C-alpha cells in the first residue's frame, strides 16, 4: 500500500552524501514503500538540499523500532545539550 505518510521540516546543518559534505536545508520524514531495505515499508528519512539538486540527499530507511530508539536518543541528546546551555547553530 502507498501510505502517503510524509512531512517535511526546514533544518539547518550539513550532511555527507555520495559526493561529500553539503548544506542540508530540509528533512522529510515518511513511512512508505522502501526502496532498498528489503521490507515493504520503512521509516524514510531524507536530508536534502533541493537548491543543489535532487541528488543532494542523505537517505535512511529504518524500521519502526529503530525510529523509536533514534527519537529517544535525539531527545536525550538535545536535552543534555540544553542542560549545559548549548544552542549551537551551524555556520
Amino acid at each position: 500500500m502507498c501510505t502517503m505518510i510524509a512531512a517535511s521540516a526546514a533544518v539547518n546543518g550539513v550532511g555527507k552524501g555520495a559526493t561529500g559534505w553539503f548544506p542540508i536545508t530540509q528533512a522529510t520524514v515518511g513511512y512508505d514503500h522502501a526502496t532498498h531495505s528489503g521490507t515493504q515499508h520503512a521509516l524514510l528519512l531524507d536530508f536534502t538540499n533541493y537548491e543543489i539538486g535532487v541528488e543532494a540527499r542523505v537517505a535512511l530507511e529504518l524500521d519502526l523500532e529503530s525510529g523509536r530508539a533514534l527519537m529517544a536518543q535525539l531527545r536525550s541528546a538535545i536535552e543534555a545539550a540544553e542542560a549545559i546551555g548549548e544552542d549551537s547553530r551551524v555556520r
Partner: protein
Amino acid sequence: MWNSFRTDEHLGITAEITTYPGGNGDEIHAYVVRPMNEGPVPGIVLVHHMPGWDEFSQEFAERLGRHGHLVICPDLYCRFGHGTPDDVAAKVRSEGGVHDDSVVADCEAAAAWLRADSQCNGKLGIIGPCSGGRHALLAASRIGGFGAVVDLWGGGVIMPADQRTPARPVAPIDYTADLDAPLLGLFGNDDQSPTPAQVDEHEAELKKYHKTFEFHRYDGAGHGFFYYHTPMYRQEQAMDGWEKVFEFFERHLR
C-alpha cells in the same frame, strides 16, 4: 501468454528513453517499447508507481512490448528534477506527491502520442501498479476513449475525506459513472490499501453504474505481488495475474 512464442519466430523489441509533449505541452521523458515483428498493434499507456519511474517500470513495459504492444511509460516525475529514481521519488514525496491533474494530463498526452503512431491499431489500454493503478483508473475515467484499463492493487481509489490532499483531491471512485472502458482489477486479499472491504465497495459502485469489469482477488498475496524485486512477490499469483492482463488486453484491444 507466457512462453507461447515459437522458437523459429522472429521476435524483437526496441526500447528507449525518449521525450514526448506531455501535459501542458511540456517535453517530458518517456520509456517507449516497440515490438519489431508485428503490424498494427494495440497501444498501452503504462503508469508508473509511487516509487518512481524506475527499472521495474521499464522491465514491465518491455514485458508488455514482447507480447505485442506498443508501450509508452511517461516519467510522471520529470518536472521534479533528475537523479536516481529513489532520489527523485524522495523529492516528490517531500512535496506531497505528484498532482492528479498532472498525471491525467501526461496520460492524455501519451494516449494522443500513441494514436498518432503509425504502428498503433488505434485501440488503447492503460495499466499501472500501486499508485499507478489508481492513476490508470482515474485517467481512464477522466479522459475517456480507452479500450481497456487495468488497475493493479491501486490504493486510494476510495478516499475518506481525511485522506484527500491538495495533490489527490478527488477519489477515483467518484468518477465511476464516467468510466467508459472495461476494467480489470487484480488485488491481494492481505493488502491494507486497498483492503478487501474497499475492493467490495468499488465493485458495488461499478455494478451500480452497470460497468464492465472483472476483479480477481488472490489469497496469500498482499500489495505489489508482481514486484519480483521485493519480498512482496508471490510467484503463483503473479504469473496468474500476468496471464489475466495479457488475456484482457488481447480480448479488448486486438
